[in-house]
């Protein structure tokens, strides 16, 4: 197992390096001159040239990358030129919001997706299965911003059940905090559950055709016991991967959802940085998110190996 962990860790290093290079290039190659952004549209060419020199923008790209990477490796991701905050401070302030949103969304997604998948698999091809499969496709094709606006109009403007926008930290008012998160998490979850449901459903249908299930049925075990105890665990291997990947993918979803529901998370930080061309924040956050994604995948690989020993021995 240790061997496996070390092998995987070594494989991550070039990925992280590539991520850092891409992040730097994306931010550096964006159109528009950072010096102009900072100085505003009334700046003179002399002011701009002086600022470009100060910021090292007149240096070659490779030199700027190496110097940026050098700082990053020492834990210095830079400071926002707008707020003076360091990237790490800004991210630390906002990460709890995004984590809570993603975890709640994934939880709600599983809460809907898993039971539906089991029910569908139990009677594959039946009316419920066909209906839910159809609904899943409908949900998948619905863009999240549209879903968000629909939910806001229904639950906030018309029914007044839940707030349209806003946030309070969980530590201050736990109940209000949860109320603020219901709609955004639901928006993301409604796009999440179809994937969960489809994967688990097909795996379970396959599992239910295994010999040992036939044996269990022959022994006269209750159908619910067969489904939940004998079929669920072996069918959930793909689900673990999907859930892991989803958490990374959800980060993308938070860009839109956090902006619409005015949640002060990483997504909003990133959108704000793009709007204001705060390239330091942009580079830093993209780098951290990409690293987070790589790490989540690593953890999923580890879980996989725990669930299925064949994987860590390299037989699968």
């Amino acid at each position, binding site marked *: 197992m240790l061997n496996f962990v070390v092998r995987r860790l070594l494989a991550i290093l070039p990925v992280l390096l590539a991520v850092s290079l891409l992040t730097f290039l994306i931010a550096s190659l*964006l*159109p*528009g*001159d950072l010096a*102009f*952004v*900072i*100085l*505003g*549209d*009334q*700046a*003179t*060419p002399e*002011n*701009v040239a002086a600022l470009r020199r*100060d910021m090292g923008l007149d240096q070659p790209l490779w030199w700027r990358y190496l110097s940026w990477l050098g700082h990053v490796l020492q834990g210095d991701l830079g400071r*926002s030129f*707008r*707020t*003076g905050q360091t990237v790490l401070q*800004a991210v630390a*302030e*906002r990460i709890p919001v995004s984590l809570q949103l993603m975890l709640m969304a994934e939880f709600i997604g599983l809460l809907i997706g898993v039971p539906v998948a089991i029910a569908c698999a139990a009677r594959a091809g039946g009316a419920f299965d066909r209906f839910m499969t159809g609904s899943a496709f409908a949900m998948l094709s619905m863009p999240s911003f549209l879903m*968000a*606006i629909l939910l*806001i*109009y229904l639950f*906030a*403007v018309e029914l*007044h059940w839940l*707030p*349209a*926008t*806003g*946030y309070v*930290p969980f530590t201050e008012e736990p109940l209000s905090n949860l109320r603020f998160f219901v709609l955004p998490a639901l928006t993301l979850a409604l796009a999440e559950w179809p994937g969960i449901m489809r994967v688990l459903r097909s795996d379970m249908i396959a599992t239910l055709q295994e010999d040992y299930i036939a044996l269990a049925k022959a022994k006269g075990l209750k159908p619910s016991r067969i489904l939940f105890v004998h079929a669920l665990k072996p069918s959930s291997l793909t689900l673990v991967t999907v859930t892991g990947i989803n958490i990374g993918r959800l980060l993308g979803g938070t860009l839109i959802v956090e*902006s*619409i*529901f*005015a949640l*002060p*998370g990483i997504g*909003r*930080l990133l*959108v*704000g940085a793009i*709007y*204001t*061309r705060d390239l330091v924040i942009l580079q830093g956050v993209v780098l951290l998110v990409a690293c987070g994604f790589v790490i989540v995948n690593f953890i999923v690989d580890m879980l996989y190996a725990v669930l299925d020993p064949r994987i860590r021995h390299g037989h699968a």
Partner: protein
Amino acid sequence: MTKIAAAARKHVPIFLVAAFALVSPAQAQKSGGSITVGQELDIPGFDPLKVGVYDTSTNTAAAAIFDTLTTLDEKGEVAPKLAVSWTHSDDYMIWTFKLREGVKFHDGTPFNAQAFKENFDRQKDPANKCRCAFYITNVKEVLAPDEYTVVYKLTDPSVNLPAVITIQSQNNVIHSPTAWKTKGDDYNRNPVGTGPYILKSWTAGDRMVLEKNPSYWDKSRPYLDRIILKPLPDAQSRFASLQSGEADIIWDDENDADNIMKAQKDSKLTVHTYKGSGAQVYAFNTKLAPFDDVRVRQALVMAIDRPKMSQAISNGLSRPATNPYGEGSWVKCKDDGALPFDVEKAKALLKDYGKPVEFKMLVSATPRGRMIGQVLQQFWKRAGANMEIEQVDQATIPSRAFTRQFQLTPWRIVDLADPDPQMYANFRSGSPLALSSFSNPELDKLLDHARVTADLGQRTEDYCAISRLINKEAIWFWTFQNTYYALSSAKLKGFPKIYNGVIDVSTTWLE
């Protein structure tokens, strides 16, 4: 007529305004309560050395936390705030302000001429490399001859200084020197002013809570106990927050015409709108073909159907502009020389030009920018000119404009209390901002004259002559006037005019 002009006409060097009232006393103000303001953007902070230039959301917060020396009243006239009176030298190069006595910053330290001077010096000091310094390059120095007197020494004459410094911008709001010295890097997010509200708490990206300043110098104000400022970036959910009562007033603009119109029909909501000065403008590069020929420029301007364009981009909310001043400006022209909308004349002019007219126009890579580009493209196609849209990032436009790498570029003239700063920069020969690279001695003479003339009637004549000249030469054209919107609950009263797009809630109360 503004106070400046009134004073100037009488050639009286000093004028005093005894009473200070921002709100007309027709309605009875109520004290207490709390409101939530929905803004478009996150606030980056308040220290000019850090944030450089305030955006509209920051201006809005600054209007509550800080004071400026002067302010604009409901009639658009300059009124006292931290300064109670002011005088000027004959050549308008020196302005002397008498400060209000007994005013204290939120940290208890006194506001006086020395504090004001320190604010100014800090921005101006080259060692601080403040991006804000650019905007005060016309001020040579600020002196504090005694505790309550501040003297501005200018590099160029400015008849309009008291009006120009009314905006709650990075250069004009007054910070506590003790606070920035003791707080250092933390000052940016812990601002201390003399304003009607004190910053209580600020959650990054979420809410800023401001509480009533119990020792505000204007004893009758403020009325509300608390103001909560929240960034609600999405226009749809911002409007939903207003409808569901989570926000009491929100920022809005013409891009969101549907919601503005919905609010107009809703009896529980009030639509506040201010027809400001300035306009959405476009500059031709007269050094490049085909715009080196006045016939082409005139033809393109005459081919624009502004009412139709307004319908297409904002449901008719955008107000056509025929000069760069706008309804909110004191410059009112009987004849601004606007070229009429006349497609046939445009066609004839292009035919007369004799060569195919093909060019590229810069537009910002936003849905609105694209739409404006497409509408103009259609107008010009009808007249016989082919325009290719070049979509560029918003931030690219200034750099392309300054380096004159464009044929036609969008620009803007913002809502300032006086046209001089922008008109002078945009049209005086040799100015880096004179994007058209057009030089005309008559235009220069008018611009020079307008900035040293005290008489408002004379200045109006100058600016109208400037407009006639620009329209005739068609070096720039204007499409729509600047209009500002805020939507609020009908219970919110006392909301002032939205000068420069700033939602100043420091004078409001709840019914």
